[in-house]
């Protein structure tokens, strides 16, 4: 191997490491985004029965 190839290898290794690190962080962020969406859906499901109950009570009070 020539000296230039060794230099390219050294810089290439750094580039590959940084690229792999960014890819791992991106995958983690995607997982967090998915978890946030799941929690939002869970919170919405929790809020829905309460809202339905409140509407029923308001209707009952209105009829009275």
């Amino acid at each position, binding site marked *: 191997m020539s*000296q*230039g190839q*060794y*230099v390219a*290898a*050294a*810089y290439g*290794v*750094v580039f590959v*490491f*940084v690229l792999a*690190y960014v890819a791992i*962080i991106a995958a*983690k*962020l995607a997982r*967090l985004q998915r*978890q*946030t969406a799941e*929690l939002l859906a*869970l*919170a919405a499901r*929790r809020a829905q029965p309460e809202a339905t109950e409140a509407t029923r009570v308001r209707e009952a009070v209105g009829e009275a």
Partner: protein
Amino acid sequence: MGVALLLALIVAPEDADQGVSQRIFYIHVPIALTAYFCFGLGAWKALRLLWRGEERYDSESYVAIHQGTIFGSLTLITGSIWAKVSWGVWWTWSSNQLVLFLVLFLFYCAYFMLRFSLPEGPQRARSCAVYALFGVVLIPISFLAIRLAQDFIHPTVFTRNGPQMSGTMFLAFCVSWAAVTLLAYTLYRVELAGKRIDADLRELREALQ
């Protein structure tokens, strides 16, 4: 980073003694210094955790040490490549600075073994903080080893008389160092933000279920 690469690979003059292979210096040394800085930062955050008892310092210390091991691996790899070109070997056990850096690196690798072998909680945070603090002693020893031991294998560029290089070379080095530090800082902030969001989401999930 682009400017640093341009300066290091094109603008900086070729070294009269080592030739093209000296250009590895512009990536190897800034990465090594950043690794030292990350380990030092991890120890500093560990000290703050023990001092103040605030939980956030645990994750900050962990992320800094994680960054340190990444940059430490890169230091060892780029150093090995440079050693192969300059000395004809991938590694030599006769250089104190190399061996001490390897010891420092392995010490902080063991930090993760300790961390992941303990149950999560304040006790783990304190144990890891104490371990991280012990490791910081190795940083100045590793850094000064070459000067203390009069090691002639690993070159000393920064002496008491200043940097032993031309103005353009020094500029390329400074820009590369700034770029690598900025990269490390960005990665540190991103990883830390991810860790915090992860912890918040876990708490939120527990609260909702």
